[in-house]
């Protein structure tokens, strides 16, 4: 069973995403900001990270950079309301594997997760 780290400062989004993943057979761990995500990643060694961008303490782009510095093989998919072209390019440049713009359809998220977990 693949383990997914869900990172979002919005409890509502964490609950929604975690429920969807658990219902589809994934193990889920959560973090509510970018700094917590880095600590959780080191402790849990998840197969994939779903990362919001706009978060307090440490934003998703900085967290992504720290994760990739710690583990160059870290698989991170950005899941964010910020879908501007400039943001997508910045995330991909920092090492994101994929980019999903909120609001997402459940199938869209599951397909992206499946793809990365099988890669």
């Amino acid at each position, binding site marked *: 069973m693949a383990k997914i780290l869900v990172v979002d400062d*919005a*409890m*509502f*989004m964490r609950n929604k995403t975690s429920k969807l993943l658990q219902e589809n057979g994934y193990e889920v761990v959560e973090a509510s900001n970018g700094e917590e995500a880095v600590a959780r990643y080191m402790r849990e060694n998840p197969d994939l990270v779903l990362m919001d961008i*706009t978060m307090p303490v440490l934003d998703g782009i900085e967290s992504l950079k720290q994760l990739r510095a710690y583990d160059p093989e870290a698989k991170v998919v950005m899941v964010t309301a910020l879908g501007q072209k*400039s943001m997508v390019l910045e995330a991909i440049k920092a090492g994101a594997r994929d980019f999903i*713009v909120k609001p997402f359809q459940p199938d869209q998220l599951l397909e992206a997760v499946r793809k990365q977990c099988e890669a």
Partner: protein
Amino acid sequence: MLKASLVNPFLESAFKFLQNELGAEVSRGSLRLEESRSTSGEVNVAIGVTGDAEGIVLYCMSERTAKAIAGALIGEAIPVFDRLAESAIAEMGNIITGQAAIGLEQHGYVCRLSPPTIISGKGVVISTLDIQRLIIPLELPFGHLDICVALRSLEPK
């Protein structure tokens, strides 16, 4: 005076989100300009905008409306406006503003957003200092929602 290119993306993204995610029929009242200091709703989501356009966007509503919208997003009735309900309402503001930021970028304004903040209470006065705000009044089956856009722009790239 606020430019249409700064306001239209919010109208479009709000209609899209409310119709698609809440299945809500949405109607828009007349847009109006307000001074920077005015009384807000009982529940207000504030999101800061920086970059080529800067200021703040507010989503203002009564607690009753906030509970109804949060209930529709979460999928269950919300008797008390708790942390989960706050989070759902904040995320609504985050997503509408995020989608609007895509539209702003297409008009040449590259922007960053702050995480949402919830300001609650009766008779709260919020000042946007020297930036006038344009009010987009929306009627939903859940109640009334005002989107207040207080942005000023640098010249688009």
